[in-house]
């Protein structure tokens, strides 16, 4: 399968002299993939996503979008192909949900252009797909955590890009919303063939929706491959310093991970 986005042995540090937060990582995202980037807090997941989206440039190595180095692609063009859902969205001013979603059309509009009927229709479609159509005129500030996250995902969908990078999409959500987002992401991957990479520290989320996993610790990849191969008790122990029972439900294909005790 074709590699859509490929981080080729990338390293990254935020400032000269600072430690490497991403250290020689190679990740290949094939078209249509649903990949999880799994690791404890501070393992470099968010930084890796920033490299993959091109908002940060690797200190060493390169990221390829299709055949082209991502740092040679303009931000505008990159944004038409790669959308990002950040961990948290904190607005400085009050915007309605539809205004937030319409901002996803930015890379498709000229400097002085205003969203036309097509853009509005795309935004409304995206809201329908994420079950947020009824929230369109509500103030984003007043939405619940799960609603906000779905609106931000709708904005990313409205961007019309084939790749969606999600940074801890369920981190601040309760169980019900976690399930909702997980279901939504799986559906978007199936129905819209959106290629996704999801960073998370949530083993169960990764196990339940991702078809492949990259495990990161201290900026390095410690295991990568199909979920069932990677998600072993041994790898979980190396990842979190935690002893865990890993169960695979043969009927549903779900993987359940139960932490038993912390090592060290």
């Amino acid at each position: 399968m074709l590699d859509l986005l490929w981080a080729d042995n990338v390293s990254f540090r935020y400032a000269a002299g600072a430690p490497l937060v991403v250290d020689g990582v190679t990740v290949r995202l094939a078209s249509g993939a649903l990949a999880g980037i799994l690791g404890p807090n501070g393992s470099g997941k968010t930084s890796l996503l920033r490299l993959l989206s091109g908002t940060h440039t690797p200190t060493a190595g390169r990221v390829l979008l299709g055949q082209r180095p991502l740092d040679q692609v303009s931000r505008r063009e990159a944004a038409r192909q790669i959308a990002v859902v950040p961990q948290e969205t904190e607005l400085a001013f009050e915007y309605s949900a539809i205004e937030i979603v319409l901002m996803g059309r930015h890379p498709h509009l000229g400097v002085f252009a205003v969203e036309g009927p097509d853009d509005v229709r795309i935004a409304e479609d995206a809201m329908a797909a994420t079950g947020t159509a009824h929230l369109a005129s509500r103030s984003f500030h007043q939405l619940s955590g799960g609603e906000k996250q779905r609106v931000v995902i709708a904005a990313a969908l409205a961007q019309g890009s084939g790749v969606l990078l999600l940074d801890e999409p369920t981190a601040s959500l309760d169980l019900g919303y976690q399930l909702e987002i997980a279901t939504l992401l799986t559906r978007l991957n199936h129905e819209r063939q959106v290629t996704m990479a999801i960073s998370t520290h949530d083993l169960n989320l990764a196990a339940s929706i991702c078809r492949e996993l990259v495990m990161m610790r201290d900026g390095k990849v410690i295991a990568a491959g199909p979920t069932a191969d990677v998600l072993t008790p041994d790898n979980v122990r190396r990842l979190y310093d935690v002893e865990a029972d890993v169960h695979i439900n043969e009927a549903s294909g779900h993987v359940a991970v139960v932490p038993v005790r912390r090592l060290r």
Partner: protein
Amino acid sequence: MNIRRRIVIVVGMFALFTAAVMLWAPTVGSTAISLTRAFDRSIPWDANVDAQIFFVARLPRVLAGALVGATLAAAGVVLQALLRNPLATPFTLGVSAGASLGAMLAVTMRLEFGLLGVTSIPLASFGGSIVATALVYALAVSQRRGLSTNVLLLAGVTLNAFFSALILFVQYIADFAEALRAIRWMMGGLDVAGYTPIVAALPFVLLAFGTFAMMPRTLNLLSVGTDAAAARGVEVTTAQRLAFFSASLATGAAVSLGGPIGFIGIIVPHLVRLLVGSDHRVVLPASALFGASFLVLCDLAARIVMAPLEIPVGVVTALIGGPFFLWLLVKRS
């Protein structure tokens, strides 16, 4: 939902209001004049007292007020989005303190120079604003790649305090009459003598507004967050630089024309947001227009409320704007 139509209608209403205020304001004053007679070309200029009062005595002042008000309000909008901070003003980043120090030095050192008909005080104040802008920018980019808005904010606030201390120091050692003259300048005043100072400030303001015109969608995205903006295709550092320099340049030009008139840059954007929401495609032009009409009205009040005594316009903006804003805030919630 037609977005373009909404923008045009809302901004058009603000434009009509501003145009009406600007036409009406010059007719008000100690001598009543008629607009019809002022614009009547059949009466010779020498005989047309109404036209003389309108065009020579009052219109420059109204235009200066409109230019300064529009600039401060628009610069406030841009800086609030850039800093992601609704409490930012055009003066937060040290521009006005630099300008005031420049003006103060020009007054106390009795500098008498001019350029293209512009006198030493506005020139020195514009110079001071440029120095302050350069200093704040140098500090903000010194630390890491790109522009740190946190450092920008801290450097601006610190520089404000530093320049204010220098102003007090200069004021302390200056003689009484000079110090008073400088203090009066700092209270703001739009009593410009003729059109020359307006024309001198205009290129900088136009350059800044040209830049602002390209930025509203970018400002929306910046106020959602720099990461989000970058992911939606905004060249964040370039956009931040453009926003900072254009807003600072415009503020420097406005302050050199009217003095550091406070309150407009924060109150007008908030008022407009209360009325029309946060989309910068509406907020930015509507704030510029409302800033213009608001300052012209405040200046009118400054002229007539205690006539023949004039109140400094900087005092009036806060006296009128403050309670009005609070009323709107309470009424809305």
